[in-house]
């Protein structure tokens, strides 16, 4: 196989049908960009889960009666609630926080908003038991068992809030993947069509090649490579688009969340997303090309 021959055929092929080639590359790029965006979504969600779930706790808020009178949770019913929590299999640790400590924490949290701190009084805040679980995802058990017990005002599960938050991110991710899939379908159809057009415009050449006894590889490899090259270019543009998007928009948007959503690092885009996109793109182009040639182009 003479590489220079195949290579020059590929270049002429791509140039012969420039508008179609550009459409094919751009559609591929959009599809892959969306797909890459979805992958970054997944990665971000994973990162967030890892960092948040460590800190997730269930807070058992105690009634006004206990908050006012039982300063160290030694009286009933606080002591027995604490006892029950500590002996629970799922619980890693229990920390009692009285309303003064709660007030201190409140002041710390809202340091930046002194007018809010000024309004707050220790008497307005309930005492609570902060429960840390071995497996934060299994907080339901605690919530069910302790809600409504004597001495318990209410049970707050941070996991519930995070669940809602993550399900929002998950639907963002799913939406991205769906659009990527639709764009991918368009890209595949464009690739198939481009190869057909390409094979048609080169039918004289291909006819001569067949007559003089060129092998299937010789006659069809140029078309196949045309698709693969376009796929690779699409992937490169897609990755370029993601990097651009990161610097011009995402960085600023994510910074505005104050670190609630971790920033997307350049390295996340370059690895593993970029090689995945390149590989997926070239593979799909090659398969599309091969199938098209099998179905529509006579050898």
């Amino acid at each position, binding site marked *: 196989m*003479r590489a220079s021959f195949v290579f020059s055929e590929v270049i002429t092929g791509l140039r012969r049908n420039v508008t179609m080639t550009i459409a094919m590359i751009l559609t591929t790029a959009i599809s892959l960009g969306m797909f890459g965006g979805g992958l970054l979504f997944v990665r971000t969600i994973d990162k967030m889960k890892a960092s948040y779930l460590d800190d997730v706790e269930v807070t058992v808020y105690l009634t006004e009666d206990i908050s006012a009178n039982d300063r160290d949770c030694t009286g009933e019913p606080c002591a027995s609630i604490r006892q029950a929590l500590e002996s629970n299999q799922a619980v890693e640790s229990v920390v009692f926080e009285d309303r003064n400590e709660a007030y201190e924490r409140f002041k710390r949290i809202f340091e930046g908003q002194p007018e809010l701190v000024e309004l707050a009084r220790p008497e307005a805040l309930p005492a609570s038991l902060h429960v840390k679980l071995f497996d934060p995802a299994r907080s339901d058990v605690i919530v069910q068992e302790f809600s409504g017990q004597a001495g318990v005002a209410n049970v707050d599960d941070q996991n519930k809030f995070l669940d809602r938050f993550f399900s929002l991110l998950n639907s963002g991710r799913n939406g991205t993947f769906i659009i990527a899939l639709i764009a991918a379908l368009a890209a595949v159809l464009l690739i198939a069509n481009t190869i057909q057009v390409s094979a048609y415009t080169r039918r004289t050449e291909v006819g001569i090649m067949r007559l003089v006894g*060129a092998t299937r590889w010789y*006659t069809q490899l140029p078309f196949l490579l045309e698709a693969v090259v376009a796929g690779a270019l699409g992937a490169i543009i897609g990755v370029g688009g993601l990097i651009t998007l990161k610097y011009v928009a995402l960085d600023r948007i994510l910074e505005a969340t104050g670190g609630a959503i971790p920033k997307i690092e350049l390295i996340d885009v370059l690895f593993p997303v970029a090689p995945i996109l390149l590989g997926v793109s070239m593979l799909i182009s090659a398969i599309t090309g091969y199938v098209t040639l099998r179905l529509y182009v006579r050898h």
Partner: protein
Amino acid sequence: MIRLDSVSKVYKTSARPALDGVSVDVDKGEFVFLIGPSGSGKSTFLRLLLREEVPTKGRVMVSNFDVAKMARRRIPRLRQTIGCVFQDFRLLANKTVAENVAFALEVIGKPKRTITKVVPEVLELVGLDGKADRMPNELSGGEQQRVAIARAFVNRPLVLLADEPTGNLDPDTSQDIMLLLERINRTGTTVLMATHDHSIVDSMRRRVVELHLGRVIRDDKRGVYGVGR
């Protein structure tokens, strides 16, 4: 070199067979005219030899290839032993004369060294030395057909198939092309030429196989076109 043994070909779209029990034997180095009116089966005959078609019945041998039975992946091998020339030349308009000829070698993976050596030789053989860098549209019809013959012959095929090679040419030019085909035949290449051209067949006095409605109705060692009619 070429042997058809009770070959029939029926196309799905037609009730009448294109070839009907055709048996023909062509020795190595022979020059054979294949004549007959349109629709007599000449094209099908040639297409069977190239394995563009598979016979419905019978056996087709070209050199050592059992053409109808051979595996698809061996078809390129078969075609590398057969050169083809057509009425419409089928040159690549965007390539020069030399590139057109070289193309036939490039696509079967011949090394560049061989190509640069062989192409000028064959261009000289067909009388086109000095026109290697011309584009096809700068050449006369006869010259274009010479390029096509050079391309068909450059890989030194055992068999040269010519389908109405003079169909688009004036009588003088046709004579020149026939001389060229004769010269190629003298190198030992078997030549099989389908034609309508009475005067050429009559003047050459070579073997004539006449087809009519898919049957061989005449096979003369030294025939003329219109004998007995």
